[in-house]
């Protein structure tokens, strides 16, 4: 174990192997010293990272352990950079179907997709979410060490497995507050041969919402549905989009060349009812969806929220929230199910309005992925839970991390 206790702010332990990690956690349990768990630190802006806590880095617990393309599974140590996994997969024409966003880009404008462990711990997914699911849906097996200092495993290396509780789901999106993952197994899938995007320009929000609902209700297996307001289209690096000068309602079709062509032909007829249809071919289409997947941070001084809502309710949410509460144009993804919202930084009233608006439209969840100001902590970065659900969350925390060693307060003050 390398430790650099030189200064309080640089107080970090770097685990070289599972044994190191176990020792470190056990020591922290014994000494009652909380840890702040990190991979490559790309998601440090999400939730409350307590800078006074000792950092525990998993960066060195890295490497693909086993990848069997024919079994559609990949096992890697938790600190493996996602870039390494992406390149291993793409050499076999495979992929993580849930399209992980690059939070490096979102947070700082510099690409860095982080580690596989960090991705699973935050459960962040991209545009394909509404058809392919999130990391949770592809997370097959895990080895880890709980806040009790005990190594354990759950799940397995096969897709169909109901042996015991689905502990992978419990750890997906738990932000390192229950256990530190050391090795993970994920399901991988063939990458589509090609893709095409169809765009209709100039639709207003209500029309766009109806259109997205309608297009994704066809049997043509649409795997992306987004709405970019004017300012966002202007900033796009895809020429077909940046020249528009108005909003863009976009859908994506992926699959074999034959299939994509035939579906695009059918869909173009549907879309033509709403306006002129612009077709964006494979390469540009891929760039466009990469932009949608990982939106740029935008103006430095606003809070960037990621809000999951019932797909038919995003306009209702924006209306309830009020135009004046929003700093910049929102980005709509997941065929309406996801909003990237830029809200005034640290404006408690706006935040409260967002939470109550979600309740009013029939449910949702929100995560502050990039605060505009660095100062104010702790801040409320996750939408509140219903009372009973919160109690259950707390009891799970108590059972897995009774001494509150692992990322305490990262998600909620008592979790």
């Amino acid at each position, binding site marked *: 174990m390398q430790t650099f206790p030189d200064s309080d702010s640089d107080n970090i332990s770097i685990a070289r192997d599972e044994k190191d990690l176990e020792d470190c956690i056990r020591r922290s349990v*014994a000494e009652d010293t909380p840890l702040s768990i990190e991979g490559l630190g790309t998601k440090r802006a999400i939730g409350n990272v307590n800078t006074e806590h000792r950092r525990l880095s998993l960066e060195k617990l890295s490497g693909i352990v086993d990848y*069997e393309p*024919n*079994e559609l*599974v990949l096992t890697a140590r938790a600190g493996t950079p996602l870039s390494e996994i992406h390149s291993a997969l793409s050499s076999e024409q495979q992929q993580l179907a849930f399209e992980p966003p690059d939070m490096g880009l979102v947070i700082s404008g510099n690409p860095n997709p982080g580690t596989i462990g960090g991705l699973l711990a935050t*459960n962040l997914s991209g545009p394909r*979410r509404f058809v392919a*699911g*999130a990391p*949770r849906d592809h997370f097959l097996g895990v080895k880890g060490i709980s806040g*009790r*200092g*005990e190594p*354990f*495993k*759950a799940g397995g*290396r*096969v*897709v*169909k*497995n*109901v*042996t*015991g*509780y689905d502990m992978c*789901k*419990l750890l997906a999106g*738990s932000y390192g507050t229950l256990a530190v993952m050391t090795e993970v197994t994920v399901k991988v899938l*063939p990458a589509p*041969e090609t893709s095409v995007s169809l765009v209709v320009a100039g639709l207003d929000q209500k029309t766009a919402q109806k259109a997205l*609902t309608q297009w994704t*209700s066809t*049997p*043509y*297996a649409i795997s992306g549905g987004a709405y970019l307001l004017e300012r966002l289209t202007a900033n796009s690096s895809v020429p077909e989009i940046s020249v528009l000068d108005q909003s863009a309602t976009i859908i994506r079709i992926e*699959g*074999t060349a034959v299939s994509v062509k*035939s579906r695009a032909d059918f869909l173009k007829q549907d879309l033509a009812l709403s306006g002129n249809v612009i077709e964006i071919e494979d390469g540009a289409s891929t760039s466009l969806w990469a932009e949608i997947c990982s939106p740029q941070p935008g103006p430095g001084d606003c809070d960037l929220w990621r809000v*999951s809502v*019932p*797909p038919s*309710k995003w306009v209702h949410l924006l209306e309830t929230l009020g135009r004046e509460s929003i700093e910049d144009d929102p980005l709509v993804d997941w065929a309406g199910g*996801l909003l990237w919202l830029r809200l005034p930084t640290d404006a408690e009233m706006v935040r409260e309005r967002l939470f109550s608006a979600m309740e009013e439209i*029939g*449910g949702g*969840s929100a*995560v502050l992925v990039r605060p505009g100001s660095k100062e104010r902590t702790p801040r409320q970065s*996750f939408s509140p839970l*219903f009372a*009973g*659900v919160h*109690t*259950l*969350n707390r*009891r*799970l925390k108590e*059972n*897995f991390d009774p*001494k509150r060693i692992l990322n305490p307060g990262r998600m*909620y003050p008592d979790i």
Partner: protein
Amino acid sequence: MSQLKMPDVDETLIARRAEIARDLRSLIADPESVIDEEHGRLVYDSDGLTAYRQPPFLVCLPSSTSEVSAVLRYCSDHNIKVVPRGAGTSLSGGALPLADGILLGMAKFNKIVEIDFDNKCVVTQPGVTNLGISKAVDHAGYYYAPDPSSQIACTIGGNVAENSGGVHCLKYGLTTNNILGLEVVLINGDVMRIGGKHLDAAGYDLLGVMVGSEGLLGVVTEVTVRILRKPETARAALIGFGSADAAGDCVADIIAAGIIPAGMEMMDRPAIHAAEDFVCAGYPRDVEALLIVELDGPAAEVDDLCTKITEIARTRGATSTRVSENEEERLAFWAGRKAAFPAVGRISPDYYCMDGTIPRAQLAPVLKRMAEMSEHYGLRVANVFHAGDGNLHPLILYDANVPGQLETAEEFGADILKLCVEVGGVLTGEHGVGVEKRDLMPHMFTETDLAHQQRVKCAFDPEGLLNPGKMFPTLHRCAELGRLHVHQGKLPHADLPRF
């Protein structure tokens, strides 16, 4: 019946049956929904795993969330065990009653609450059947994807509890990938909503934990499921092979070609013959393995992939290949597979259906080892197999009237499941642990692994009143599990008594 150790029965409670029935009647609008007389209780004495039978202490059939809440709170206050039940088709004994436990039947929760096409979901009560959901949205061209063979009977609540699969899970996922929200009542009577019509929920993934929790964490009183648009078209290929190896290789090649069929099923010779004798599906009899590969989606894509798959089959030496030309033919291909269980039921007085998962590449060696075991135990076995995702369903043929044969079949079955784990697979792919595989759990998990699972239980049901005796081979007290033993470096619960 073979021996099964269940939690100690609280005899004092049994003596209070009439009194407790009276109390329960005061909590429920319809007094006939509490059943205490013997005949009525006998109806519920087993589920789909009929080798085990136990009439429940009492049966209670609530019809609203508030009734469920009141009953559970009563049970919690009086320390009474509860076993939830849907349609009772569990093949792992998940709904097996307890002599001193209330059987909470969810059959009256049989209404669909809301159909929301805009958000592509259905909100339903848990007692609605799996097929009932698809039927309710069929007119608009939608369906609910997970399709267990038991779908005309099994309930969505049971599906949630077992994380049920089906032949189309390869492409569309298991129950867990198709559930958006739940209303759950905890043992203390608290009602909570988890998830909803949005995709990502806040906090820990309680939805993911509830699905597959086998009725041990809470009672599901409402379910929001995702519905899908029906594919434009579907076609199936029926491919025969001279050896299981060749069929296994063909499956691997299809996946390697980047094709994820909607379903990819395999049957071995005994299963093919039993099915063909029963329904005359037109299966070839002179093959060792038969694949049914179904493709669905846009017509152009399906036609394209059918050609690719026939080509792959040919290079792998398929002895016969047919691709369905119309819906009637496609359904005929499936008829044999769908009737495989009853078909095997005709050639043997009894059969025992196993459910392990293995890595696909292990298929041929596992079939070979199974044939050896069959020889060793002197019992025949027929195999149907979700080949696409490595989920095996060996059917062990036996005769319960021959003394000792059930026990032999169970031993054989346990050996198969241990083999699955040995080759890198798992004990159960879709039927659940229940009582059936409970005692095999230590073959897959260490004490510490299991203790962590049980800590989930402790968060939801610290007194262990919901469905005890299922899933875990040993019942630990939550207080014991809560202790930290980090200084000794080892977890000492080996000395704890079994229940």
